[in-house]
């Protein structure tokens, strides 16, 4: 060691703040989760109150768990470990403080706006546009603080945890910004710039990779720091870290379309989504192996140390979830499982088992160190572990059984396969009710364990004084040849072989004829050359990578390129093609002003959280709901409402299936029409007035983003809406239902009755209206 010795004191205050915030919001998010699980089984738990209904609280649950619980936990873990791994105090106390309080303000804003029904109508991207801007801004604060800290580091070489943090920061920024591009119609409402299939594709590119880069990569980084620290054992394999890191960040981005299998999404995208998900299996398990095998030699402590217990179980649940993910991405498995509770079970194995247990392990490890006092009770931590584990297993097995039961019932046919065995959707819902009840028990147990942890942490912290870690470091300058420029980053064997091989593979994937053969041979040649080069000069590859780890900017650029390419190849073609060429043989008429108002109510109430609007290309779907959905039928939908789960039936062709009176009675009291239904009633729709005033601004924005509305004046829009409302109210009156035309229920009925009405098109040109 050379240079001058200095002592630094870490900024552990912000770590403590983030940790306590994670504990608080975790409890809130899980409590809301138990409530909405109850609502699914007992409609009375919606309390007939707008802001307490499932459709509004479910976004609150998902956003709270993802962004508030895991978000705060991740910031605590990243800030604690990064300072120690790079031997530097966080660059700016101001930015750290701003990051903390800014993030908490965002969470509070979300907790207020979501129950009010202010939403963008896309899963995990529900927050309204002013909050989106705040999220992006605070994320930039986080990024600046992090990279500035890297710039001031005394440890030149970047440890594997830091690689994962870098990937997290740049990828989440990219995904979040693209998926939230929208044009405001008011201070609280906006329309996303993407519509229909484009919106679906961008949404799941974002949604899936929120799982990847918000719930997985940062936690893997945290695992790589806290697990070997707690176990006191070296990491199992450095080369496994390298291989699984780069394959994970490159492959993950491509897997988004597996959320849209068997839908109207073009088949080439479905194939990429499925095959890249299968290829993800090994890289994901690489992380699990490196975690579990690091515990070799420390397994004895599994009996005594709750931290090791939580980490070992958390990593095991990660392995289960990442095996299940590729399995569910196989098109034929997905045909059964998609839209059912199996998917909900899958995501909770990840959220409760992986995120929740890794968080608990980290909290139990951090608290004694950040407050310099031993954990209050190991017995209580063990109790938490066992209650939590039983909770997860109950939850998971209930959801597997529920999903498979409902999937099989929905697909069952009789009389030689000519008709459905259970034509009434509610038969399948009522069959899984005991399992839905078991889910409440499992979730409740998990929450109880979490509360035990809160008590334990409180008893640990309350009498203690916070302490900040310190470290003695040596200022060290770069030696000659250690710095890497653009040329050094780009022109070296691993990068060149990867780029060339990938380009050749793309030629093979996307061309025909001779060019296709060229691509195939080129790809094989690249792979063989790379293997040959590595066998003879593999040492050079290692030297280059060691040098890359000393240079954070080139490293970050290479990570960005790896994660950006998948999205570019999948999304750009869908954005550049004229939307009217993506209609197949049908195209939706643009909505009438009243239908648009009704559609915004459908989004506000979160109907898409239980009802899909996408009849898949599967025989049971077609038998139950009618002809499979065409891309053109949702082409003007901002946001798209294909949905991701079916607690109720698909609504893509519900228009004109029933009369107005049916919808009128059903929305007020679903059980008056559908015996045994678990849908909440929506009495406030019968009391509130439709917001006609905002329609002209909304239609103006929709025109800006390419929806071919006619040139209506604001006065005409108002007249059209009111006239249609009077028409519907008149029909309702004839059917014995009396309602003022201006009530929201009338607009909602107008929208529901428009679903599935589309015009056949001969040629894509002149498709509009």
């Amino acid at each position, binding site marked *: 060691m050379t240079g001058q010795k200095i002592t630094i004191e870490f900024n552990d205050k912000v770590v403590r703040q983030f940790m306590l915030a994670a504990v608080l919001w975790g409890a809130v998010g899980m409590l809301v989760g138990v409530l909405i699980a109850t609502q699914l089984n007992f409609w009375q738990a919606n309390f007939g109150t707008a802001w307490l209904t499932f459709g509004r609280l479910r976004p609150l649950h998902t956003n709270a768990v993802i962004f508030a619980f895991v978000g705060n936990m991740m910031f605590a873990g990243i800030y604690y470990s990064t300072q120690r791994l790079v031997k530097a105090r966080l660059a700016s106390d101001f930015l750290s403080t701003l990051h903390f309080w800014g993030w908490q303000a965002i969470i509070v804003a979300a907790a207020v706006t979501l129950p009010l029904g202010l939403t963008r109508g896309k899963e995990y991207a529900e927050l309204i546009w002013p909050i989106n801007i705040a999220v992006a801004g605070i994320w930039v604060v986080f990024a600046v603080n992090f990279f500035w800290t890297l710039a001031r580091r005394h440890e030149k070489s970047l440890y594997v945890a830091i690689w994962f943090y870098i990937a997290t920061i740049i990828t989440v920024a990219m995904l979040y910004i693209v998926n939230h591009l929208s044009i405001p119609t008011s201070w609280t409402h906006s329309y996303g710039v993407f519509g229909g299939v484009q919106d679906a594709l961008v949404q799941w590119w974002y949604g899936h990779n929120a799982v990847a880069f918000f719930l997985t990569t940062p936690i893997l980084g945290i695992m790589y720091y806290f697990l070997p620290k707690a176990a006191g054992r070296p990491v*199992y*394999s450095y080369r496994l870290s390298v291989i699984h890191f780069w394959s994970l960040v490159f492959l993950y981005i491509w897997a988004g379309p597996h959320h849209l299998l068997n839908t109207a999404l073009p088949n*080439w995208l479905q194939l990429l989504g499925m095959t890249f998900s299968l290829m993800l299996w090994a890289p994901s398990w690489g992380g699990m192996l490196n975690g579990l095998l690091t515990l070799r030699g420390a397994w004895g402590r599994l009996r005594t140390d709750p931290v090791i217990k939580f980490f070992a179980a958390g990593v095991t649940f990660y392995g289960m979830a990442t095996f299940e993910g590729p399995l569910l991405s196989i098109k034929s498995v997905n045909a059964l499982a998609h839209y059912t509770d199996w998917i909900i079970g899958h995501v909770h194995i990840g959220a409760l088992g992986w995120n929740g247990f890794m968080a608990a392990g980290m909290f139990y490890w951090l608290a004694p160190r950040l407050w310099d006092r031993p954990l209050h009770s190991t017995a209580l931590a063990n109790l938490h572990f066992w209650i939590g584990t039983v909770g997860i297993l109950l939850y998971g097995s209930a959801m597997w059984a529920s999903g498979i039961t409902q999937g099989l019932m929905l697909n069952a046919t009789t009389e030689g396969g*000519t008709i459905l065995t259970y034509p009434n959707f509610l038969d399948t819902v009522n069959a899984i009710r005991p399992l839905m009840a078991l889910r409440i028990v499992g979730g409740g147990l998990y929450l109880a364990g979490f509360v035990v942890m809160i008590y334990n942490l409180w008893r640990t912290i309350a009498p203690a004084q916070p302490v900040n870690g310190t470290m003695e470091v040596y200022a060290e300058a770069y030696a000659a040849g250690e710095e890497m420029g653009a040329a050094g980053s780009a022109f070296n064997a691993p990068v060149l072989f990867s780029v060339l091989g990938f380009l050749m593979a793309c030629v093979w994937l996307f061309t025909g004829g001779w060019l296709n053969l060229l691509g195939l041979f080129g790809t094989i040649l690249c792979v063989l050359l790379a293997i040959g080069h590595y066998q003879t000069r593999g040492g050079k590859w290692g030297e280059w990578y060691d040098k890359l780890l000393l240079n954070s900017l080139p490293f970050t650029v290479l990570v960005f390129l790896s994660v950006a390419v998948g999205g570019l190849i999948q999304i750009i073609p869908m954005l550049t093609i004229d939307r009217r060429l993506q209609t197949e043989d049908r195209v939706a008429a643009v909505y009438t002003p009243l239908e648009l108002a009704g559609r915004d109510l459908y989004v506000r109430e979160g109907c898409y959280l239980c009802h899909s609007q996408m009849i898949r290309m599967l025989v049971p779907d077609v038998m139950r709901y009618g002809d499979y959905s065409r891309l053109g039928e949702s082409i003007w939908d901002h946001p798209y409402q294909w949905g991701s789960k079916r607690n109720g039936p698909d609504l893509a062709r519900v228009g004109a*299936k029933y009369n107005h009176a049916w919808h009128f009675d059903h929305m007020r009291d679903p059980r008056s029409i559908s015996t045994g239904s678990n849908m909440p009633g929506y009495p406030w729709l019968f009391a509130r007035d439709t917001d006609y005033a905002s329609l002209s601004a909304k239609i103006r924005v929709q025109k800006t983003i390419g929806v071919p509305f006619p040139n209506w004046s604001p006065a005409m829009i108002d007249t059209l809406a009111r006239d249609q409302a009077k028409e519907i109210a008149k029909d309702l009156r004839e059917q014995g239902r009396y309602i003022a035309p201006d009530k929201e229920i009338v607009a909602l009925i107008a929208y529901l009755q428009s679903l599935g009405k589309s015009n056949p098109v001969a040629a894509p040109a002149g498709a509009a209206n």
Partner: protein
Amino acid sequence: MDPHPPPPADAGDTLRPHSYDGIQEYDKRLPNWWLYTLYGSIVFAAIYWFTYEIAGIMPSDTARVDAAMAKIAAAKMSSSLDVTNDAKFWEMSRNAVFTDAGRQTFNSICAACHQVSLAGGVGPSLLSTEWIHGGAPKEIFKTVNEGVPAKGMAAWGPVLGQKKISEVVAYVLSYHKEGEPVTLNPNKPRGVPAAPPGG
């Protein structure tokens, strides 16, 4: 090459020289089963893509579903009943096997609008001898099978199939008598609302 090399206890057990905040790293070989899983999935992806996208050997999803639905339609046609035979429907209405089966379907599906009592709710009463779309058995069958979209009666043919609809018709007829006077009244009032109006 020996397919089962001895476990490499040598190189992998050397620790890498660098230590990060006290954390050290081994550099163990990657497990073979892990590597083969990775390589296997890549090869599978290539073959799968070739089969569907390049060679086009497999039928597209659209073609597959269209063919399956055509087969179902053919099966339905080949086993179809004579649904224009009024006498047959009346005979079925006196047979408990048909009416019991019909009651089950009715209570699960139709009762939503017509009530378990058949007295009507969102949909009209099925007890009276006044009919909106015709009271002859074959006309009732047609109304259920094809629906009356303008009035909010769904077409149940594609969902229930001919046999179940015939049973439902037999069940409804069991509340009527063969030869009773039937009147056609397109403006017949609906049943009472299921709940008081307003919110």
